[in-house]
């Protein structure tokens, strides 16, 4: 019986050994493939082009507002405690009392669009501008990078006036002024004034990773400058990504209010 299997087994071993030897002669030696990490793919110089998304989606949405902020001035505290009625955060009120401008589809404005519902956005660079195209509310911002100066006495805009410059090959810094006071900073009803200055720092760590830091400087509302985003990690999405649209249409919002919000608040 043993002899019955010995012959074929030997033949099989011989074939395997021969094919291995042949492969060793005709193919390059098999090396373990290097593990490619994002860190090993360097970022392009002075380029933020692409579609970016917050790595931690819920952190991008920030439904309860900023993690913390500098103390309010007396003026700021009055607005926060007595005028704004948010639906979330530490001062949230029942849904029927909420006066968040987003509920009637007002623009989120800047920088609330970075502090709430920061969803995928595309960066497009031209010779003199950097354009940011946001999924949420399907809006865009123009950031001048050709030496434009910030206006001294700007008319208010929902998304302000922005200028930017490369601090180094991988860090783009944007300064923005002239924001409309009707907008809130976040979902928790944190206010800002028309005197607010916002600094955004986009630091490209590697090809696939961007870090966003947002500094709020509004002495009328806050006792000192503070960071609303601190090195928030963004990841690069594939080029063919469809960013889709997320638009607050007043008619749809009205239907939602009638069906959901009104019965809830009775």
């Amino acid at each position: 019986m043993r002899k019955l299997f010995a012959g074929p087994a030997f033949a099989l071993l011989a074939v395997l050994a021969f094919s291995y030897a042949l492969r060793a002669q005709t193919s390059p030696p098999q090396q373990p493939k290097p593990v490619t990490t994002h860190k090993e793919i360097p970022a392009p110089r002075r380029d933020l082009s692409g579609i970016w998304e917050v790595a931690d989606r819920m952190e991008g949405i920030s439904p309860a507002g900023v993690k913390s902020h500098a103390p309010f001035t007396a003026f700021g505290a009055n607005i926060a405690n007595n005028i704004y009625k948010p639906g979330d955060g530490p001062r949230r009120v029942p849904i029927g009392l909420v006066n968040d401008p987003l509920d009637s589809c007002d623009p989120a404005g800047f920088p609330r669009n970075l502090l709430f519902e920061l969803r995928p956005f595309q960066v497009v660079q031209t010779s003199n501008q950097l354009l940011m195209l946001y999924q949420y509310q399907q809006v865009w911002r123009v950031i001048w990078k050709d030496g434009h100066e910030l206006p001294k006495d700007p008319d208010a805009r929902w998304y302000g006036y922005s200028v930017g410059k490369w601090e180094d090959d991988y860090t783009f810094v944007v300064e923005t002024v002239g924001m409309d006071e009707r907008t809130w900073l976040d979902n928790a009803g944190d206010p800002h004034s028309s005197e607010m200055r916002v600094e955004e720092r986009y630091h490209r760590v590697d090809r696939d990773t961007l870090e966003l830091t947002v500094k709020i400087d509004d002495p009328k509302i806050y006792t000192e400058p503070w960071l609303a985003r601190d090195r928030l990690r963004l990841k690069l999405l594939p080029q063919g990504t469809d960013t889709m649209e997320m638009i607050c249409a007043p008619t749809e919002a009205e239907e939602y209010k009638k069906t959901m919000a009104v019965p809830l608040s009775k």
Partner: protein
Amino acid sequence: MGTKVLRIFVALVCFMVISVPLPAHHGSAGYDMDKELVMKGTVTEWLWANPHCFLKYDTTDDKGEVAHWAAEVSNPIDMTKRGWSKHTLNVGDEVTVTVRPAKNGAPVGQLLKVVLPSGQTMIGWNPAVR
């Protein structure tokens, strides 16, 4: 001992799931977070819209009384990622709906899950599913 550890683990996981904040700018203060209602109903409308998609459906009690309910989920982009579409629910579908109801007793709620006529269960307002 093993069972005890498992129970603690399950309790911790449940706590983590429940305490994730809800992705809405109007908050969830109006809903009873400790209560879930399961009911059979007939779809009367499925709105695929911002800021939230919502389902309208009718239920009938033992006495034949019909109640008109509405239950919300997240926006179309989030729901698309969870496998939903504008075709997920159709008028006339007989479904089993689980909602987190309003505190004030109004027939509205957060749609936690729905069992479709095909028997497939769709997870609705569950921030743990992204």
